[in-house]
């Protein structure tokens, strides 16, 4: 039981890194990306191949995984980000499918549908972690989550973040204010992909195996639901959303009723979350924290008057 709770915390951490990345793309910049699972797959498989075939360590592999995923982020971003959101959604969906298909068919490297097994754990302070060392894993992954959280917080509270939000609100107005929209959009997309790559790397090393069908379209949707449920454009809310979604999808197993509940119910739930949240509470359950300019100005004036 305790073991299972720890496992859930690990998964929440892994998904939180990916959903924080997606929130930067969807929530802050307003681009709908449906291939977060594809980037996760790239990260996971890069780590798997580097650690098993090339005998590299985990930490180097993780960094390479992140950068490779972001490289693909640039590759898919450049042709599509010049376009409106709807096209991007389809193009990213297609990209996710292509990644899955390539992994399934590129037998010599990815071992096709069998996946890669026997991925060694990361070594830290001279000891190699296995999947059994759950407390250590929680520490490592949640350090990752905290770093990601502050990293994104620094981005969105800077000039870059304001540019991203301006693009989300009105792209034409943003570009007429001198914001290089293509640059910022590709930047956001690439950063989100990088984080998904890192999450994928953790995923591979923790599970010690990767299989292509894990990274399907439903995984992208699940990650999207995390950001949407918590509140688009709010990192803290995204983490809350991640916790709720992971708990909701693991709860039947936790209660020991997973054999009664068909797996489709979970996905139907995700579907309803998307529809109902969009109609009744588009800002998510937590909502978006907005800088209150009126208050700032008032306080400034108040200061001056004093």
């Amino acid at each position, binding site marked *: 039981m305790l073991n299972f709770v720890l496992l859930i915390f690990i998964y929440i951490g892994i998904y939180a890194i990916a959903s924080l990345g997606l929130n930067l793309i969807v929530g802050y910049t307003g681009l709908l990306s449906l291939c977060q699972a594809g980037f996760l797959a790239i990260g996971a498989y890069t780590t798997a191949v580097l650690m098993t075939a090339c005998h590299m360590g985990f930490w180097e592999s993780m960094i390479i995984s992140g950068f490779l995923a972001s490289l693909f982020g640039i590759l898919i971003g450049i042709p599509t980000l010049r376009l*409106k959101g*709807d096209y991007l959604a389809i193009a990213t969906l297609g*990209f996710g*499918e292509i990644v899955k298909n*390539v992994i399934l068919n590129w037998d010599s490297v990815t071992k096709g549908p069998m996946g890669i097994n026997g991925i060694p754990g990361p070594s830290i302070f001279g000891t190699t972690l296995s999947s059994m060392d759950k407390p250590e894993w929680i520490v490592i992954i949640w350090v990752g989550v905290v770093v990601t959280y502050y990293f994104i917080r620094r981005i969105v509270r800077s000039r870059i973040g304001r540019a991203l939000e301006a693009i989300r609100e009105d792209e034409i*107005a943003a570009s007429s204010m001198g914001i290089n929209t293509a640059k910022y959009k590709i930047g956001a997309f690439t950063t989100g992909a990088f984080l998904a790559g890192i999450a994928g790397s953790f995923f591979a090393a923790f599970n010690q195996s990767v299989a292509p069908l894990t990274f399907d379209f439903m995984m992208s949707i699940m990650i*999207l639901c995390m950001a949407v449920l918590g509140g688009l454009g709010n990192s803290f809310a995204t983490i809350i959303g991640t916790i709720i979604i992971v708990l909701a999808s693991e709860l039947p197993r936790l209660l020991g009723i997973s054999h009664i509940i068909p797996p489709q119910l979970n996905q139907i739930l995700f579907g309803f979350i998307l*529809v109902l949240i*969009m109609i009744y509470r588009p800002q998510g359950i937590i909502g978006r924290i907005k800088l209150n300019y009126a208050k700032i100005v008032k306080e400034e004036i108040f200061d001056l008057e004093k």
Partner: protein
Amino acid sequence: MNLFNIPSNELLQHLINGLTLGAIYSLIALGYTMVYGILKFINFAHGEILMAGTYAGYYFYFFLYDPSKGATYTIGIFIAALLIAMTASALLGVIIEKFAYKPLRKAPRLAPLLSAIGVSIILANLAALFFGTKSKKFEYPFDNSSMQIGGSSITPNQLMILAVGLIMMAGLKLFVDRSRLGKAMRATSQNQPVAALMGINVNLIISLTFAIGSALAAVAGVLMALEYKVYPTMGTMAGLKAFIAAVVGGIGNVNGAMLGGIILGLLETFGVVILGIPQGLKDTIAFTVLILILLLRPSGILMKNIREKV
């Protein structure tokens, strides 16, 4: 003729295969394009509406199917099943529009898109829950043994797909171009508020658009099901590719959807033959086409490049 070193009889064969595939894509693409033309939004659930209609038709056909009652009876219930599939899809399309899209008409662009994705997931999983994930065979209403024409073999079903596709598209073209409702539809897509001022019931036109688009998708679904069976995710990939077809032709343009479907069908068939792309990566062709068309001619083949205005 020895284009790309393919014998001419095989060339004809691939041409026919490509055209039948293209006809199916075109039928589905019309739904995307009509909805986009009016609401400027991609109905992500279109593929699942197709699937639901096909299931309705399938069950009707399945329960009444009885080979001992002769060919006329079988063809009769097949046509009835087709009509039932069309009605079911049309109703579902209209209902979905009322509940999941209409409240979001004035919301930011992202909202209806996410809502549509939600609807598509709900439908696909409900189907898996109620009908099972196993694919079901849709029996041919006629003897489907292939005929030899010019050294290539053509099945009656392929001929039927081409014929039905042609009839449906010609019918739609006539409806949109000649009828009063078609005119109202075109007016609504050009300028909604002004169309409303001219006394057009915009909500009715939107519902009608969803109904027609969904019914056409159901036709494509039943035709597809004869070749590839019925299963809960049958609409997903077909829907995506049809969407790509709509983009290739120029989304929002009815002629473009038909042309785009045919082009994509031919590209997919010949891509496998000429470029030697393995079957497992066949789906990659369509997405590569999408990215290329977005790069080179984002407004599609038949559309003029219109700059977005504030």
